[in-house]
């Protein structure tokens, strides 16, 4: 964690970070490099468990926790892990924390654990976590890795909540379990079915794309 080491790893980003060093690491995950909408990573859980806002929120927080813990540990160990076996080591670290959250979730709410099913265990193979470990935590200091993990985690949760919210409002006429739509509202059953997940994400990506195109023109 020497200063020289830090400077070396930052060289590429130096110009962008210069203005606002620490907030930038945080903000980029939430918006500019949002893992789901911009990087298109971690698609499987974001589609599979986003049939209600509650599931989406739980999944997002669980993933954020694993992301944070694994980022911390990997950036602490970054000088000790040999380069050849780094991916295997990262996966093992991630799998350990996923096992922790799996058991914790069972203790907190068995009902929630059931509705998320195998997808808790499948956080292990969520590309976001591995990509942050490889692209960020293995090259940066602990402090920065924490900020990066928090930003990415919140960005992921936000994206999941967007998808889950849209699907739950249209598909079940409720949000986080509260039914607020009038009885005359015809529920779009397709939205809670798998196909609805694809469509919702596609439309959210369209919105994001149109933002991007506008920004590029300006």
């Amino acid at each position, binding site marked *: 964690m020497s200063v020289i080491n830090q400077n070396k790893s930052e060289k590429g980003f130096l110009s962008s970070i210069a203005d606002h060093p620490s907030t930038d690491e945080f903000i980029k995950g939430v918006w500019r490099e949002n893992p789901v909408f911009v990087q*298109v*990573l971690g*698609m*499987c*859980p974001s*589609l*599979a468990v986003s049939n209600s806002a509650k599931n989406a929120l739980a999944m997002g927080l669980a993933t954020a926790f694993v992301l944070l813990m694994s980022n911390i540990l990997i950036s602490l160990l970054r000088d000790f892990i040999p380069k050849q076996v780094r*991916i*295997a080591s990262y*996966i*093992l670290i991630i*799998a*350990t924390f*996923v*096992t922790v959250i*799996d*058991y914790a979730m069972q203790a907190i709410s068995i009902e929630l654990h059931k509705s998320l099913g*195998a997808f808790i*265990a*499948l956080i*292990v*193979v*969520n*590309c976001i976590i*591995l990509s942050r470990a490889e692209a960020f935590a293995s090259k940066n200091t602990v402090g920065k890795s924490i900020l990066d993990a928090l930003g990415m985690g919140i960005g992921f949760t936000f994206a999941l909540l967007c998808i889950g919210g849209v699907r739950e409002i249209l598909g079940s006429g409720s949000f986080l379990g509260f039914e607020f739509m009038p009885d005359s509202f015809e529920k779009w059953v*397709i939205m809670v*079915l*798998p*196909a*609805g*997940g*694809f*469509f919702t*994400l*596609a*439309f959210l*990506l*369209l919105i994001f*794309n*149109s933002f991007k*195109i506008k920004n590029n023109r300006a």
Partner: protein
Amino acid sequence: MSDSSLWSIFINASLINNFVLAYFLGICPFLGVSGKIETATKMGAAVTFVMVISAMCAYGINAVLTAINAPFLQLISFIVVIASTVQLVEMFIKKASPALFKALGIFLPLITTNCAVLAVALFQTSKGFGLLQSFVYALGAGAGFTLALVLMAGLREQLEFSETIGIVKGTALVLLVGGILSLSFMGFAGLGG
């Protein structure tokens, strides 16, 4: 569930509960390597192979872990088995067909983080399948994955020739097509349990 016939397990895993289109597993390669039919077929074959091997190993591991009463090691040992199988496949393809190795690119090592593979191992354990049933289940899941990938690749090859608006291009369009594919696969629900 454990006494269901092998044929129904196969149909169930490949069509009715298609891993990609109904369970949303393995979406990353589904979006990433579905550009050409040829690559998609080979990717499907590689994934199927890894699935079958890891499902077999998972069966053995699960028996051992139950015997020594350490279920919390399940996830960690599964992922290690999958990672080593992928490494094996990678070395084999690199030797046997360097061109294919190039075409699959980063998505080959990423089979490790393909949720479909881990999911097969986890699902067959939770369903309590025997050795033969696990084998058929993994084979069915792999076939379903390949089918979805190849269908998507065929559609995308056609889409290349059609005019699309700027904002739809890329992932959004693939997801829209995926949604329609998923809708059509819902038709298989009537095939049985």
